[in-house]
């Protein structure tokens, strides 16, 4: 398959991208608003073309543990779900992080807590960026704001996961998962051979040959001194990721007096809010974190010296705003504006919130 331009939903784009980026295995369990990922994959039948395994697991718990097993074998594996399902995956995610395995997780968020609503939300920011499961670990978190980024981040997420032997997560929401846009699908990548996997992932459980010691995939280390060493190693890796992998987009920030910070679907709505504000003579800019972890702390710190205030615009009660406040560290005003439980704000509401919370005239 060569490069192709198609019109499709964000969820479908994830499925197409998985096949085209040479994923070896997808394991999932249906949940709205992301069931099209598994549905599209079973329609594409990649096991007949690329040899990719697609399996509907009995639960999200099983699915993430299948990912753990596949990742342990050095394979490119992924799973997807939505908020309640991602909660169930947290045990497995912690084990994957603890065993330092690469994999890709997709969360197409919906409103919570609990069973909540199937409407879009960004209330899983804390869960994604601050751990979610137990233990001191981090996920490389990518926040797409277009269907094209749903495609691109499957490739990017897997690349980063394998670069750092760490799970990566795409944190989308119901808007990005369900909306249709034109996308460029990459040309078909060939799945790695067993030989290539042995070379690239010498730690993988590929069968113990006479020329090496046995490989053991585990997160267990009962000796606290060695367990601390493991943790020190993880933290050093996380610092390297923070150094090298921060990604963000700046729009109208150069002359901005105020900056809206927003990711995913919120960033799209914010862009319209920026236009409206500028028509009214308010110099508003937009900073869109693409990686939620590592968070674009440095650039926010730089702007903190120049602008009158930041408005964190999120579909939640105020989560990312905490990271902005940490980055700004009191240098300028930081406020939050959000809607919750599946309600999406309008651009006008954002401009009003900006005036009310920061401009105050």
């Amino acid at each position, binding site marked *: 398959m060569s490069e192709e331009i198609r019109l499709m939903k964000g969820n479908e784009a994830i499925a197409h991208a998985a096949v085209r980026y040479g994923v070896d295995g997808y394991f999932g369990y249906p949940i709205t608003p992301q069931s099209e990922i598994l549905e599209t994959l079973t329609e594409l039948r990649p096991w007949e073309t690329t040899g990719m*395994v697609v399996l509907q697991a009995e639960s999200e*718990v099983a699915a993430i*543990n299948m990912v753990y*097993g596949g990742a342990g074998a050095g394979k490119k594996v992924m799973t997807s779900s939505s908020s309640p399902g991602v909660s169930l995956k947290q045990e497995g995610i912690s*084990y994957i992080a603890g065993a330092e395995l690469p994999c890709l997780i997709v969360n197409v968020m919906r409103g919570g807590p609990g069973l909540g609503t199937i409407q879009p939300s960004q209330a899983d920011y804390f869960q994604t960026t601050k751990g979610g499961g137990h233990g001191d670990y981090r996920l490389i978190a990518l926040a797409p704001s277009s269907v094209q980024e749903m495609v691109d981040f499957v490739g990017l997420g897997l690349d980063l996961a394998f670069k750092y032997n760490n799970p990566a997560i795409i944190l989308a929401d119901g808007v990005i998962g369900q909306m249709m846009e034109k996308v460029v699908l990459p040309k078909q990548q060939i799945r790695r051979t067993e030989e290539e996997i042995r070379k690239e992932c010498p730690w993988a459980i590929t069968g*113990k040959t006479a020329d090496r010691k046995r490989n*053991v995939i585990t997160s267990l280390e009962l000796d606290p001194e060695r367990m601390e060493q493991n943790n020190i190693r993880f933290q050093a890796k996380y610092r390297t990721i923070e150094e090298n992998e921060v990604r963000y987009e700046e729009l109208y920030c150069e002359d901005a007096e105020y900056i809206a910070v927003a990711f995913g679907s919120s960033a799209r709505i914010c862009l319209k809010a920026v236009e409206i504000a500028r028509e009214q003579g308010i110099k508003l800019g937009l900073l869109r974190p693409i990686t939620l972890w590592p968070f674009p702390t440095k650039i926010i710190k730089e702007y903190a010296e120049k602008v009158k205030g930041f408005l964190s615009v999120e579909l939640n009660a105020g989560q990312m705003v905490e990271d902005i406040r940490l980055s700004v560290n009191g240098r300028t005003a930081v406020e939050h504006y959000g809607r919750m439980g599946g309600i999406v704000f309008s651009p006008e509401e954002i401009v009003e919130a900006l005036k009310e919370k920061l401009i105050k005239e």
Partner: protein
Amino acid sequence: MITAEEIIKPENLVYTKPKLMNDTHMHYCPGCSHGVVHKLVAEVVEEMGMEEKTIGVSPVGCAVFAYNYIDIDWVEAAHGRAPAVATAVKRLSPDKMVFTYQGDGDLAAIGTAETIHACNRGENIVIIFINNAIYGMTGGQMAPTTLEGMKTSTCPFGRDVKLNGYPLKISNLIAQLDGACYVTRQSVQTSPAIKKAKKALRQAFENSMAGKGTSLVEFVSTCSSGWKMTPVQSNKWMEENMFPFYPLGDLKNE
């Protein structure tokens, strides 16, 4: 007098440790069934010539460190999730011989869903099930397979079925599933039993490579520490109390 050196000659050799068992000091208690079953696994894998193709999935439970003793590649699963982990390993690498090794708490309590569904899908894996009717690793709490009236640290007056439900014959349940091709109950407390058990294990592993579906080998086992008995007492107690409730033999062989 004949010296040790004179005795240790190839022509006098009647038994050796399987090559796949390494010299790591085992943490299992005296009289525990885990060690014997480990040895059988090592022997069967070696005799099949599958050392380079076998992947073990160890559980959370006393056998969590199985990977320290048998010289093959291992992945250590979260509590109860071994069948899901093994599912993916086998599906993504069908040329590998994949097995899980699980206790009763792991397999029949927290991991019931993973166990039943892996068997129901007919995953071409082997499930080795150590049923010692107790949680060994955490210090002797009640297991799903704890017998009625049997005392543990969380049913100190004996398992009361009104309070705790009935001991679970999960192998009988699994034998009902179309995906399971071979379900058998074995033990390792005597030489003849060990011989039989080894044959069953070999068949299970062969089934998995022949693509016949899931094979489950239950070992009715002892936990001398958890039961607070000597090894000899444990064997006797197992024969008198466990075997009547968990009778040995094939439950399904297709």
